[in-house]
């Protein structure tokens, strides 16, 4: 559905990047040739927690082809600095979170398996790997702690001397007194205990970095898959490497998936750049799958105890959460606001809940750092919130759909301020529910359940309200240039990781300028060519780049107008722009935009982002599962949703985002779990044999209905859609499973819903107590 702000949007244009990508024309970091580049290999800690003893690199250095072997001794001497968080949280007393130094290589201790302890640089990858095996690092193992509750327990091994009790911040949000008062007068209170499994990003393209050296410019170019080159450039130059930004150009070509963990700067990137600067030679590295599991940021590691208070009519009075967020061994780039702000944004879901409170202990552990991953604090929150709503319905004998309808924020209440201070922009949740039940064929469920039961299976129907609050940095200058060659180049500081930015941005420009999409080329990912940019994260690129490109296009039209007037020998005031050309009013004399550029030179329009990043896409998901009670296996039979995503720029790409997001949530609900061994601190899911990702036949055909209300927060009415589907998927699946199992006496279930776990829950429920 397009709104008339920009007629022409909303066409199902096929992705402009696909012919190239599907015919082998992709250019990923590893595709970039760099003749003579040296290869870096990283030696990683096999221990979860250990004191480092002096390293011996003599044998490694003596190996053929080895150019350099670096350890923390070298990087400390070179003054390589802290990889900082770029956001902060504070405790109730106003104290900022504790952020111990996070150096490219730790000089004193290792704090998780996979932490980098040495770098070997050699002329071939094989030689670098062989030499890496000869680097001798002495470790004195220390006791390790891997789960949030273990880390928060008294007497737990301490991960950082600076963080007593492993707590980096005791974070709070909301009005505790109001919540307590509401609970005191509640007619009913429902409670859940929830442990969100830790998950991995599993992008198709693992991380890599190529640093090439340009002697003439005394400049290094870092080519690396990222979610935005400017953040990387800034942190690498200003904080870690201490070199002027002119000496480091950061380039990102095609990216095989990002999802959040591609945003932070990692040790490997800074070390590869530093090695290139030091050796004055090109150095490259690319990660293997196990390194991805061990060393990229993980996500969702949360423990929560939540309660919901209802009055006698079933109205929600208050919600409160007591939780522990496991940050891993260090504070990663944006994580301070992920479990915290992420939870706060969506804690009241689609409901009008007058009081809410979160108490969250943010803790360190001997695990890989945790940071944003698609949904960023919201999927795990919505799992327990929506589970809690279902539980309240069951406990009070209400229909879960009716209970939701009763408590929805009303359509006339927008903008609606939540108990935790957020401002929902627009929505119509009753309509979302209607549409969700329609697209999910709720009325046919009873028949399908009867058919399942006839086959000895259980069947459950689950719904989940969900939403997202788009975030990110609107640090954008879009530059649109109409070239003399009949093409339009648009430069932007957001970064596609596969989403199809080149298509949707081109659609905005095509609609703004009245030209065919094929004429438009989007340029991103080059710190030399693009003045600034906040990158892509938080489901906001369409908002940030889309609205700014529209503005830049308006500047182009304004700039072209005088030239058109000259060329047509008419007064600018008599010209109107329509369909890619200026026409003298009342005549058929016209001149096209490209003709103006061809005759009078390129036309440039620039604009800065001037809207609000935040929008509130919402949805109601419905899910049907079929469970084999004999084996505990859960099959997702149907998954559908109604979504309010504001203005739709391209329904094909929207569907793609929704499908991918649902699949991500499905994996989290049913199988994904990056477990560490509680004793040894080893990651038990170090390969894809041990870390289960969903396969095509694990996912149903996803359906969706659009029930949009345009966002008043930006000129195009767009809402960010990338994370919305992920936020609700696991919740709907858990609710469907519980709908099937609760009648048999199952009260709570934890994710992932493995056959063993479901079967055990059924056994426990059947056992007479």
């Amino acid at each position, binding site marked *: 559905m397009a709104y008339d702000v920009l007629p022409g949007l909303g066409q199902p244009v096929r992705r402009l990047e696909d012919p190239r990508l599907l015919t082998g024309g992709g250019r990923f970091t590893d595709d970039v040739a760099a003749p003579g580049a040296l290869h870096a290999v990283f030696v990683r800690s096999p221990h979860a927690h250990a004191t480092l003893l002096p390293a011996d690199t003599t044998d490694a250095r003596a190996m053929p082809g080895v150019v350099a072997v670096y350890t923390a001794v070298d990087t400390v001497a070179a003054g390589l600095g802290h990889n900082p968080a770029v956001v902060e949280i504070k405790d109730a007393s106003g104290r900022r979170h504790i952020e111990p130094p996070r150096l490219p290589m730790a000089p004193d201790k290792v704090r998780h398996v996979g932490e980098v302890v040495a770098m070997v640089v050699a002329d071939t990858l094989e030689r670098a790997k*062989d030499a890496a095996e000869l680097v001798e690092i002495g470790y004195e193992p220390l006791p390790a702690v891997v789960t949030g509750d273990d880390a928060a327990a008294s007497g737990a091994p301490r991960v950082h001397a600076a963080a007593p009790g492993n707590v980096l911040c005791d974070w709070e949000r909301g009005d505790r007194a109001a919540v307590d008062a509401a609970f005191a007068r509640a007619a009913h209170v429902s409670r859940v205990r929830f442990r969100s499994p830790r998950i991995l990003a599993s992008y198709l393209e693992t991380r890599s970095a190529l640093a090439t050296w340009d002697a003439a410019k005394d400049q290094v170019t870092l080519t690396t898959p990222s979610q935005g080159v400017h953040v990387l450039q800034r942190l690498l130059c200003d904080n870690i490497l201490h070199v002027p930004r002119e000496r480091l150009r950061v380039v990102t070509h095609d990216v095989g998936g990002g999802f959040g963990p591609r945003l932070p700067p990692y040790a490997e990137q800074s070390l590869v750049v530093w090695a290139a600067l030091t050796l004055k030679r090109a150095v490259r590295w690319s990660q293997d799958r196990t390194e991805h599991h061990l060393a990229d940021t993980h996500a969702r590691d949360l423990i929560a105890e939540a309660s919901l208070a209802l009055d006698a009519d079933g109205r929600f009075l208050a919600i409160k959460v007591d939780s522990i967020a496991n940050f891993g061994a260090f504070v990663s780039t944006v994580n301070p606001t992920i479990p915290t702000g992420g939870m706060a944004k969506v804690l009241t879901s689609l409901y009008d809940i007058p009081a809410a409170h979160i108490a969250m202990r943010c803790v360190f552990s001997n695990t890989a750092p945790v940071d944003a991953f698609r949904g960023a604090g919201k999927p795990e929150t919505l799992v327990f919130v929506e589970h809690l709503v279902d539980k309240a319905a069951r406990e009070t004998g209400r229909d879960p759909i009716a209970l939701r309808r009763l408590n929805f924020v009303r359509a006339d209440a927008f903008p609606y301020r939540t108990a935790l201070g957020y401002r929902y922009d627009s929505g119509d949740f009753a309509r979302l529910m209607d549409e969700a039940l329609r697209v999910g064929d709720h009325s046919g469920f009873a028949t399908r359940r009867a058919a399942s039961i006839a086959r000895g299976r259980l069947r459950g129907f689950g719904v989940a309200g969900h939403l997202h609050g788009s975030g990110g940095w609107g640090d954008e200058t879009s530059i649109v240039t109409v070239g003399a060659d009949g093409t339009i180049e648009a430069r932007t500081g957001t970064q596609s990781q596969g989403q199809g930015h080149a298509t949707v941005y081109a659609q905005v420009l095509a609609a703004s300028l009245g030209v065919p999409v094929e004429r438009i080329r989007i340029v991103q990912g080059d710190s030399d060519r693009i003045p600034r940019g906040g990158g892509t994260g938080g489901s906001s690129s369409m908002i940030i780049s889309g609205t700014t490109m529209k503005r830049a296009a308006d500047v182009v039209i304004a700039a072209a107008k005088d030239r058109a007037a000259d060329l047509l020998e008419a007064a600018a005031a008599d010209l109107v722009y329509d369909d890619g050309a200026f026409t003298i009013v009342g005549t058929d004399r016209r001149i096209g935009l490209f003709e103006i550029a061809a005759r009078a030179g390129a036309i440039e329009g620039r604009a800065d982002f001037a809207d609000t990043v935040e929008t509130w896409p919402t949805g109601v998901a419905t899910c049907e599962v079929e469970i084999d009670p004999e084996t505990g296996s859960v099959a997702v039979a149907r998954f559908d949703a109604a979504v309010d995503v504001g203005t739709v720029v391209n329904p094909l790409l929207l569907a793609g985002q929704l499908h991918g997001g649902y699949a991500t949530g499905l994996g989290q609900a049913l199988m994904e779990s990056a477990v560490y061994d509680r004793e040894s601190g080893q990651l038990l899911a170090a390969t894809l044999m041990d870390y289960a990702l969903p396969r095509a036949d694990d996912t149903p055909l996803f359906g969706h209905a659009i029930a949009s209300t345009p966002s008043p927060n930006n000129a195009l009415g767009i809402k960010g859609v990338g994370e919305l589907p992920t936020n609700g998927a696991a919740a709907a699946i858990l609710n469907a499973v519980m709908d099937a199992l609760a009648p048999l006496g199952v009260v709570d279930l934890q994710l992932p819903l493995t056959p*063993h776990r479901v*079967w055990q829950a059924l056994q426990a429920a059947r056992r007479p107590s």
Partner: protein
Amino acid sequence: MKSPPLGYVRAMDMPDVFRLRANAGPDARVLAGGQSLLPTLAFRLSDPGTLIDITRVDALRGIRLVADGALRVGALTTHAELGRDALVRVRVPVLADAVGLIAHPAIRNRGTIGGSLAYADPAAELPAVCVALDAVVIAVGPAGERRIAARDFLTGLFTTALAGDELIAAVEFRPMPGRRTVIHELARRSGDYAMAGIVLAAGPGTPTHDPRPVFFGVGDRPILATRAAACLAVGGAAALAAAQAALDGDLDPPSDQHGGPAFKRQLARVLLARAVNSLIDARDAR
């Protein structure tokens, strides 16, 4: 992740294999499809020093009928070849059925039946099929051939009765007129190794005639459930329940990433019922 330093030699015929093996010493391994061996090297679970590539040895190839009517499947037969072979479809269809449960096409294109038997993963499909069908493994060494019943060949977790200088040349499946065999497994995802599986052979005639239920993924090797088989052979309405109960005596499953012994026993009971029912259904359908 990288293999230890390795030597690689390619054998062109059987004498070549024996000669190269003798030269390379006791740790050397033969390389067939590499789908199990290469990952174990990358994980540093083994360090054989030398790999002897046998994939060019013609004597280890081919699927054909031999003198006594048996189907002889060469050790180098890939899972994919097994799955599409016309003779296999007619003579030992359960082999083709099993292939559909092994991993993914890319792995089936390289993995071999000889490799699968030699590797002896207790959750693998083909070894269990071989035990259920009472197949014969043909081992060949410098001193000649040995015929070893599949159930004697698989001696434990990743271990077999092969002598250090022997190779699997082929597997032979005797003709069993009127006998039907089904394979079922419960896996976490399509293509995964089974959490538990069963191959059930029975007949001719009713499923109660000489039933041979062989379980995989629930022990250190494929396990012929003799107590359950005896219960099934009794026949009658209570036979299946008795056979399921008898599995407690037949199986002693270890815990693994999928669950503990109680869960594995449950899966085995479920599989037994499904296998028996599918034999009955198959008979009814005829």
